[in-house]
């Protein structure tokens, strides 16, 4: 029983990371109906950037914000916030750049073309990751103490670490902020309108190009945040990370209902749990196959996903 709960906790933590990335997929798909193949690799580069900023030079990083365990909490918080800001801003810029250069010229092309372009971008980004980070995993030492936070409550069989709490502390506010942005602000309304009908939105005064650009920027920022969390929680990065996470996050987005923000988060939590359960009770070798199987099953049997509807409701 304890094992199960432990597995579920791990699944939840990873699920939150998947959620940040899944939102990027779902936002972009909702607005231009493009499966942004390269999004997972943006996340990977975000994690590489975080690695480089945090890891000390002895480990290959630049050691700018070398966060070591033992740093007092206030300082730690500030450092993390700064790195978070840098990661989010950089990946947002990267994503904006990719949209501008690779996808926008193909806005009116048959859907095959931007999809293939996205694959090309994914290859490019992966190779950049390979060159920057090398062929093997790069790991950082855990920044947070690894004590079991549940110990004072007398629970010793289930472990909840500070870094897991960190995942929640970073991701949940971001999710809330996003939800507010899309639901309540003018720009968010513009995004929803463009998702439903770009031509009419344009006629109503929405700057469609800008709205799409902002969507990509937000997606990039989310990926950057996820990259940092990946480093702080899972403590490693590798150039193929985007492929693995991309699959999980994209499946999550589809499972929840592509184009649906709440669905992406829900799907991500489910996929996180499935990953954890599969890794523990089946075998990590088969986890990828299982996730793919879910993806195929959803697309074939219920392509609108669990929560159906698009970013903008269809009447």
């Amino acid at each position, binding site marked *: 029983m304890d094992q199960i709960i432990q597995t579920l906790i791990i699944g939840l933590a990873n699920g939150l990371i998947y959620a940040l990335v899944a939102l990027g997929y779902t936002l972009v798909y909702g607005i231009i109906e493009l499966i942004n193949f390269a999004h997972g690799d943006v996340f990977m580069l975000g994690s590489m950037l975080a690695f480089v900023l945090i890891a000390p030079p002895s480990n290959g990083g630049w050691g700018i914000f070398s966060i070591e365990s033992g740093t007092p909490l206030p300082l730690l918080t500030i450092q993390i916030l700064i790195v978070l800001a840098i990661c989010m801003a950089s990946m947002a810029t990267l994503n904006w750049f990719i949209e501008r250069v690779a996808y926008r010229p193909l806005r009116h092309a048959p859907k095959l073309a931007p999809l293939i372009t996205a694959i090309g971008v994914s290859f490019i980004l992966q190779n950049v990751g390979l060159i920057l980070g090398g062929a093997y995993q790069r790991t950082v030492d855990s920044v947070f103490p690894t004590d079991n936070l549940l110990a004072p409550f007398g629970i010793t069989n289930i472990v909840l670490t500070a870094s897991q709490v960190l995942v929640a502390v970073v991701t949940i506010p971001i999710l809330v902020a996003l939800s507010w942005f899309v639901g309540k602000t003018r720009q968010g309304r513009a995004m929803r309108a463009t998702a439903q009908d770009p031509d009419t939105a344009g006629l109503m005064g929405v700057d469609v190009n800008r709205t799409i650009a902002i969507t990509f920027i937000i997606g990039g920022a989310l990926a950057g945040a996820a990259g940092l969390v990946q480093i702080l929680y899972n403590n490693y990065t590798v150039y193929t990370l985007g492929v693995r996470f991309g699959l999980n996050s994209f499946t999550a987005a589809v499972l929840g209902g592509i184009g649906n923000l709440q669905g992406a988060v829900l799907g991500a939590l489910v996929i996180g749990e499935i990953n954890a359960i599969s890794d523990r009770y089946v075998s990590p070798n088969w986890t990828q196959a299982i996730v*793919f199987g879910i993806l195929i099953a959803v697309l074939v049997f*219920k392509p609108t996903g669990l929560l159906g509807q698009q970013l903008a409701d269809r009447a």
Partner: protein
Amino acid sequence: MSGTTKVIGTGPGAWFGFIGSTLASYPGRYRAAYHRRRTRTILLTILLIGSLIYPVIHSVFLAGFSRNVVPLPLPDDTVMTFMTIFAIMSIGLNIVAGYAGLLDLGYVAFYAIGAYVAAFLASPHFGQFGIDIVFLGHVGPGAVGIHLPFWIVAIVAILVVATFGALLGAPTLRLRGDYLAIVTLGFGEIVPLFFKNLSSVTINFALGPLAISLSNVNLTGGVQGINPIDPPFLPILDVVFDARSGPLAVYFGMFLVLIAIVVARNLDLSRMGRAWGAIREDETAAEMMGVNTVRTKLLAFALGASFAGVAGAFQASYLGATTSDFFEFSTSILVLIMVILGGIGNVWGALAGAVMLVYVDETLLPYVSQRIGDIAPALPNPSQYNFLIYGVLLVVMMRFRPQGFLPSRQREAELSVHGLADADAQMGIVGEFDNVGVAPPGQDETGSDSRTPETPDEARDL
């Protein structure tokens, strides 16, 4: 319209008569082409003859020259054989993506299945289960495992792969293009995973009279793979076409490519080709004109897949071994690049794309990195950059020349950057000209009852 004869009899005699007369017409047609476009005919003839004698010339002079005098980026026998292997695959993928317009991102799965069919049917592997069947195989007495000759292996590979293609396609081909792409991608990832993981299978299953009990059974060899695999063999001349036979294997590969070209061309110039073209242009209109779109797409998918099956079987037999490491997602994309770059919808384009890309990947890039490594070791190593190059290639091609270099005229018209805007206006079609979507404008078909639109807006324009 050309190529059909007016008076045709019945039965096999007539068929041989037709083949004979077609072959006999070639000299006449060649002469006509020579008169019409002299330069082009001469160049193509040189190219053809050059490719045919190149393997021999290479092994007789050039290899030695390149080794001892000046190193040249010349493809060697292995590379050339792989050119033929990938040519077969890209001709096959061209049927799926070029003729029928279906984006298959998991083509490597069929390649892998073909290779493992060869591995199962022409190696000692099944000897561990006590299954020893030798039938026309090229092995000594007392050989363990199953040993069938290559032509049987290839036929079985075709059947197995086509079956898998049909099974995969049946529920998924009605999906929108981008969803189909993702599903095929998933399939392309799962199949190699199966081959990798089934190296140690433990099952204890009992249901009524059916009981299966396997304990740590090595079904697929996993990462170590299966070897040795029997090479293709010609009994009369006692010739073997494996990795040690030099140019012979290249010629065998060329022979397979020739068959592939003929099959693809025949399909293109038949009711299948017209049906595929119609579906690609406007699937709804095609369906309304009586084309059974589901069955036609399924045929494209399964037939195209079987080419990869043959390629895989040949590859495994040629190398004498196979392992799950050979089959990755990037291979699917590589073949796709060959088709797109070479020219989508055109057999010759696919062939050219395959030759070019294998050359670049296996010969040119390693050569350049070696030279750079010799001259300036500090500079980055280009062969580490091959995916960067392919990625850039894809992005640039899609932006500026999505139809490739030698596209079929139809695809050129549909895809060329000018063509994209034109098609709409010319046809008076309301809504987005969507090469991928299967619905009339405004309708979103993503699954089950794709024929019932949900709002009257979606019902416009039919």
